[in-house]
């Protein structure tokens, strides 16, 4: 393949990973923005979504599209419920102390990972895509499903944006983010907002995982990379800034796709992680700095 089409293919692949990454990172960013906590178990919510998607679609049988449609609904709801429970039972009692929360979510990470290994097993299993349609480009054929991921993610991002800026729920969330105590004084049920945001963040990660699982398989260790990439995106985009998160996700997703096609993926990951750690050290407000409140 010539260089031009090769680059185009890399761009397409990059866009797919950017789409999934922006959903995952948006979840992490929401939780960090509103609750001011870092959820280390975020990647495990992603993994849980993928594993449950396999369970759902293999239990239903029948046409793949039917199983996939069910997998888009049931697993995110289940993951949201798990997150809601964890928030009520653990994080709330820690009063969102940043260090205790990190330790507790590390514990949650190990628990979810081990349960997945025990009940789901160490195998990697695929979920059949809802449709197999190849779009024929002049240079190569490209999976129509992958393009639909991009469209669907964009739709979800816009929907989340609308919920945040145009609805009463979004208003409550923004008020809580702006000043927790004043929000409480105005009779906003801060505890319930926190639980809802934590569940919503987990559900976004789970949906992202369901979308990606027909392309890459469901595996109990698959949560590690999305967690690290989401951290990178949230930091580059500015901690807690939603617009920055999406811009950074596209940037990171694209460059990750392009770099790992042309260079060694280990080297790419190494350089990216180092660069981001240095960004956090020297420009803690992120590159697209929404200034810290």
């Amino acid at each position: 393949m010539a260089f031009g089409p090769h680059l185009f293919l890399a761009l397409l692949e990059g866009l797919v990973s950017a789409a999934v990454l922006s959903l995952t990172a948006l979840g992490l960013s929401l939780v960090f923005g509103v609750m001011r906590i870092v959820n280390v178990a975020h990647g495990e919510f992603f993994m849980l979504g993928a594993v449950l998607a396999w369970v759902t679609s293999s239990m239903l049988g029948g046409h793949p599209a039917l199983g996939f449609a069910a997998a888009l609904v049931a697993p995110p709801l289940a993951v949201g419920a798990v997150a809601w429970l964890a928030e009520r039972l653990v994080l709330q009692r820690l009063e969102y102390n940043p260090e205790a929360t990190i330790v507790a979510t590390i514990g949650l990470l190990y628990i979810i990972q081990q349960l997945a290994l025990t009940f789901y097993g160490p195998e990697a299993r695929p979920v059949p895509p809802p449709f197999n349609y190849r779009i024929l480009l002049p240079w190569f054929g490209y999976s129509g499903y992958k393009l639909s991921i991009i469209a669907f993610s964009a739709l979800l991002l816009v929907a989340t944006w609308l919920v945040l800026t145009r609805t009463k729920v979004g208003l409550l969330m923004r008020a809580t983010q702006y000043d927790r105590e004043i929000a409480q004084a105005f009779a906003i049920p801060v505890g319930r907002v926190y639980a809802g945001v934590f569940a919503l963040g987990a559900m976004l990660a789970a949906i992202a995982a369901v979308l990606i699982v027909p392309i890459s398989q469901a595996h109990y260790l698959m949560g590690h990379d999305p967690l690290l990439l989401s951290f990178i995106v949230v930091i580059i985009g500015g901690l807690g800034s939603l617009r920055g998160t999406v811009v950074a996700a596209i940037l990171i997703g694209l460059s990750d796709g392009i770099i790992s096609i042309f260079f060694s993926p280990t080297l790419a990951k190494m350089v990216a992680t180092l660069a981001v750690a240095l960004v956090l050290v020297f420009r803690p407000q992120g590159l697209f700095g929404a200034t810290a409140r």
Partner: protein
Amino acid sequence: MTGEVSPLRVYLLHAAIILALFALNFMLPPYHHGLMARIMVLAVFAMGYNMLFGYAGLLSLGHAMFFAAGMYGTGLAITHFGTGVPAAFACGIVAGAVLAFAIGLLALRTSGVAFMIVTMMFSQVFYLAILYFAAWTGGDQGMVLQQAARVATLGPLVLDLSHPVGRYMAALALFAIALFATLITVRSRWGRVLVAIRENEERTRMLGYDTFANKLAVTVLSGTIAAAAGSAFALLFGYVGANFAAVQYSILPLLWVLLGGAATTLGPLVGTVVMYYVTDTASSYTSAWLLIVGVVLIALVLFFPKGILGTLRERWAGWLP
């Protein structure tokens, strides 16, 4: 904090612990004898972690890189340059100290949550670097140190570190040095400055202390102790592997210290012993030992934030250092 307690009791207690560990050498059955040597080395790692987390209040999620720096400093020196044991040990310690100084300079510009993430990321870079430079480090296969390379000769003294007794005694010696170094440090004026920084950094700065320099110094000390443990682990057990640089080995010292009691001199030992035996016992029933780690972590922060010795000190024995 300790009040008017004679220091004699404190030093006697620590000497008694060392003596008890020495006596265990002759009483333990082979399996537990080997396990205990391993635990003592890992407890040194936890003590290094405790210096930074317990006393100075800096929660690092990247201490695996210092442990691994010691391990690889030693392993690379033996494998590629054929150095003797003392030189290789020194290489490991120097590698850890230099790395800790460099990381400290960068990471200490941040604080709180950002500090945890930055240390975790630097540690991840270190781990990826070990995998990437596989030609030197053996990648994820790691390196095995041959038995011949693990015999230390200091003048007329010959110590075979692959022999169970030699291994146990070397581990105990390292443990004793680290324990008394910690004890002396935390009872010194400098130790109190560290605690002051943990409790209120702003006020400590106002009193005229250079908090950045103090934090950098304790980071280097903590990293160096962790590197000494990593180097000893490589020499005593003959294996250098990338999995010791992975995230899990940054979490484990945190777990041990929290369980035993942060900011207690003996807490790291207690936490490591308890956790090791809990997972060892549990693994004969189930392979799900990560589940136990997770549950213990959550239970600790929820119900038992001071750990075993911290609670003991609070309730009954206020004199415990």
